[in-house]
């Protein structure tokens, strides 16, 4: 009986050690920093074209975990600035969406709810001086806030279907790579 007790204690101890090692491994894996630079969706994929050229990604824009990448049209007439930021909780992301803007405000905006993420809003208008068309797409999903800014020639705003498709692709990428924030 003593031998049995000793063996049983050994098994329990071994199992405990294994559990600790496994948990430590999981913790270590979860602590790996996310490579945000791979997060922005390339517009060439959503437009099935070679029109867009990515600029350098800026990590942690405005001091918040995340990434911002600007894509320029090959003829220099248009740009898409894609920013994804990660917050501590969904409420903080939603609050930031209400207060945060990327670039100057849209003048004479036409605002529309769109089926992108949570609370997707597309606003189209012009720059303050009227020299450019400007469109902004903002949405959250979990802890993440995505803000996309489309700038182009005056009188040639971003097509709504393209903006929505791009946003949905970015939302899917957020879900896949960040696990919904």
């Amino acid at each position, binding site marked *: 009986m003593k031998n049995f007790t000793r063996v049983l204690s050994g098994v329990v101890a071994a199992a405990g050690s294994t559990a600790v090692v496994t948990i430590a491994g999981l913790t270590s894996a979860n602590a790996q920093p996310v490579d945000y630079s791979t997060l922005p969706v390339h517009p060439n994929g959503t*437009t*099935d*074209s070679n029109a867009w050229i990515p600029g350098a990604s800026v990590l942690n824009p405005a001091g918040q975990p995340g990434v911002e990448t600007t894509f320029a049209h090959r*003829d220099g007439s*248009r740009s898409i600035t894609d920013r994804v930021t990660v917050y501590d909780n969904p409420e903080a992301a939603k609050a930031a969406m209400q207060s945060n803007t990327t670039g100057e405000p849209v003048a004479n905006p036409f605002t529309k709810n769109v089926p992108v993420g949570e609370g997707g809003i597309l606003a189209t208008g012009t720059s303050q001086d009227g020299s450019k068309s400007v469109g902004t797409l903002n949405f959250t999903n979990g802890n993440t806030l995505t803000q996309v800014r*489309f700038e182009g020639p005056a009188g*040639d705003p971003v*097509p709504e279907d*393209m903006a929505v498709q791009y946003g949905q692709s970015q939302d899917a990428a957020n879900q896949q790579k960040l696990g919904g924030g």
Partner: protein
Amino acid sequence: MRIFITTVSAGFILAGSLTGAGMANAAQVGNDTYTPQPVPTPPRSEVQPLDCQGTTGDMGCGPGWFWRDGWKGWACYPC
């Protein structure tokens, strides 16, 4: 007599040829007097793309569309 027959035959042959020629040309008589009528064309601006004039254009975009390098790259866009 032989000379007479030969002369008459030659005359018929010649007359037949001329008659045939006349019949052949009968269908083309109108061409000599045909005057082409000018086809009316709508006024067209040189700077406006052909596709936006209601024709299909080179890329077959269709009326009201215009082939250019825009938000989606090279594609048909509304005029």
